């Protein structure tokens, strides 16, 4: 298990994503899958950075583990306002350029790219888990 905790600020996003992708690389994910993991984690982190702490500063904690079912689990925690990102509706991706909105696209990408996404609220924390199957050699 490895973890990192940093203030929820945009300038820390790169470090947090790098931390996760370095571990993913050790688990043997392909270059393509690593970029998908980076994308899903960026979307989750940006959401916390932009919305979790509207009137005070706070941290983001990231913990990476390998669970017994051979999955790579990225746990992302914050102590900000309660927010279940899985409650967001998927964006309408069929509309033309003038009506197209980008809100909700980040969450949509997380859902599409990760094998499993779980949210729970516990001890005043938002806990988001992104689960990715580890490739068998």
């Amino acid at each position, binding site marked *: 298990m490895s973890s990192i905790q940093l203030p929820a600020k*945009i*300038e820390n*996003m*790169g470090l947090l994503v790098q931390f996760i992708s370095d571990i993913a690389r050790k688990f043997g994910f392909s270059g*393509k899958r690593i*970029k*998908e993991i*980076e*994308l899903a984690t*960026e*979307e989750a982190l*940006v959401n916390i*950075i932009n919305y979790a702490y509207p009137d005070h500063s706070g941290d983001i904690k990231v913990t990476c583990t390998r669970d017994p079912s051979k999955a790579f689990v990225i746990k992302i925690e914050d102590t900000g306002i309660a927010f279940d990102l899985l409650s967001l509706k998927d964006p309408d*991706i*069929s509309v*033309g*350029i*003038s009506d*197209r909105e*980008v809100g909700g*696209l*980040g969450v*949509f*990408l997380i859902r*599409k*790219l990760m094998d499993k996404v779980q949210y729970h609220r516990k001890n005043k924390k938002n806990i988001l888990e992104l689960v990715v199957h580890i490739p068998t050699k």
Partner: protein
Amino acid sequence: MEIIKSGKENDALIVKINGRMDAVTAPEFEKAMGAWIDESEKYFVVDLSSLEYISSAGLRSILVIAKKLKALNGKIFLAAMEEAVNEVFEISGFNSIIPIHDTVQAAIRQF
């Protein structure tokens, strides 16, 4: 991320983006493109052959610029996208709202 003006052909400004377009760097794209639009450029070919990564923040910036150009009767064509970037465009449905060409030359021929 790096944004380079690499030439002008058939009235289209050719812009090359290198590196990663994420929540930190996407606003730089919007700013650079916005400045060219303010200089009356209306037609763009964006060479994405060296763009390694894009997130929803990057898509958002491209959409903002595409909408701005549409209002000015301008055009933006994306070209030479690599696989990982193409996947994000496909999943999000952006490949059906922004014209994408296999090569920069193919995009230039549209003007």
